[in-house]
């Protein structure tokens, strides 16, 4: 385990006032009438699952640190596809794979199983962007990582605040 923090002085952004969700969004209802509002709600609803995930190193949420922003999630519900783009706080962040794993696990536990989820770092924000993205999207590597109790413990700690 790294002794010094990767980023000892993260920038913490002022919390934006949360837009209340306009009415219930029923994900499992296959016969719901579709509208533009409905589509926007998917992105915001899914964002709701991940914005409060705690950063692995600091007592702040991924949203506080602008690792996740409102544009972070792209949803194509018809094709059951979700893409999450996150921005590590520093270019050489070795916590990038942990953050990516947290995002994947949270979405796996929150979304219907038909969803295909791709996780990536925002282009240009990480020194080994291609390598991180490849690892985060290799299903077998993710499965093996999630059989590692230490890693699972770390992920669960990060996810705990986001389930409230």
């Amino acid at each position, binding site marked *: 385990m790294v002794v010094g923090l990767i980023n000892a002085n993260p920038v913490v952004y002022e919390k934006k006032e949360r837009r209340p969700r306009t009415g219930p969004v029923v994900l499992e209802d296959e016969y719901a009438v579709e509208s533009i509002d409905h589509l926007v709600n998917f992105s915001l609803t899914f964002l709701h699952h991940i914005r409060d995930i705690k950063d692995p190193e600091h007592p702040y949420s991924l949203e506080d640190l602008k690792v996740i922003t409102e544009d972070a999630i792209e949803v194509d519900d018809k094709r059951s596809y979700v893409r999450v783009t996150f921005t590590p706080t520093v270019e050489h962040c070795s916590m990038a794979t942990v953050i990516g794993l947290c995002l994947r696990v949270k979405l796996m536990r929150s979304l219907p199983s038909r969803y295909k989820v791709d996780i990536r770092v925002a282009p240009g924000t990480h020194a080994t962007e291609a390598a991180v993205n490849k690892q985060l999207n290799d299903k077998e590597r993710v499965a*093996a990582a999630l059989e590692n109790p230490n890693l699972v413990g770390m992920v669960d700690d990060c996810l705990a605040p986001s389930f409230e």
Partner: protein
Amino acid sequence: MASVSEDNLELQEIQKLEGHTDRVWGLAWNPTSGADGVPAVLASCSGDKTVKIWQKSPSTSSFHLKATIEETHTRTVRSCSWSPSGKLLATASFDATTAIWEQVGDDFECLATLEGHENEVKSVSWNASGSLLATCSRDKSIWIWEALPGNEFDCVSVLQGHTQDVKMVLWHPSEDILFSCSYDNTIKVWAEDGDSDDWHCVQTLKEANNGHSSTVWSISFNATGDKMVTSSDDLSIKVWGADIVRVQSGEGYAPWKHLCTLSGYHDRTVFSVHWSREGIISSGAADDAIRLFVENQDDLGDGPMYRLLSKKEKAHEQDVNCVQWGSKESGLLASSSDDCSVKIWKLGPRH
């Protein structure tokens, strides 16, 4: 069965086998079962740490669970493979071991546990004669084991060369030549120098040789062993060929060349490909679909080309991890998925 060149075939779902409590990663048909009064036997392995053995009942023609192998592997069982005699089953696990099992009555007994890899074992393969076993791992190495009398397995070589996680190993159907594919986007070919246990890499198929541009997940040979098909995270399926006479003569090494790339069919990672004895390539992917490809008889250009024969979209509710044609019965296909199920399909005339 209708001729393969006719465009009127589709996969019909015969049965869904449920029982695993986590994703089913791999499948293996027992090679000596499925004909001459011996009922077909299929092994499936899972993230639930077990291996299940399914047998076709002669009276009802449906598969039932014959045995569950549990309590040996302590993590996901990623791959399983029967020896050519059909008597032994090898299982490869994320717990870094490979176990060898023998059927004793209705149970399976563990004969040996092969240790050595530093981390998750991804794949295991027997050579044509059953004298050698190969395993590969995220530790980037491939181990070759010799099967000795008394159920002993000795490591005869450790192959280094891949620069990343090795996803699958497969022996050539007739020669003692080993093929491997990896997260490093390459396919490597390994052969022995004489009889010296000195194995080395004789060819690497990289992106520059018309190879894949992302992780290669799966390899399969045609019946004659002169063609090979591979599948990748780059969403494509590639067909390769070698001069079979040279391969068999053992006179120097016969190189493999790219013949054809099938792309634009699957839109997510293609985890598995398998070539049937009748020449149909099946593919299973993370887009939940199974596709079938055959050689294009109407080809007017140079060299063989392949075309889509049929597709089964939503073959499963989630990713398809493995597709395997039956050992004897023609047109029988098994598939396994993240949805925890195994499905049995029959290729037949379209309704």
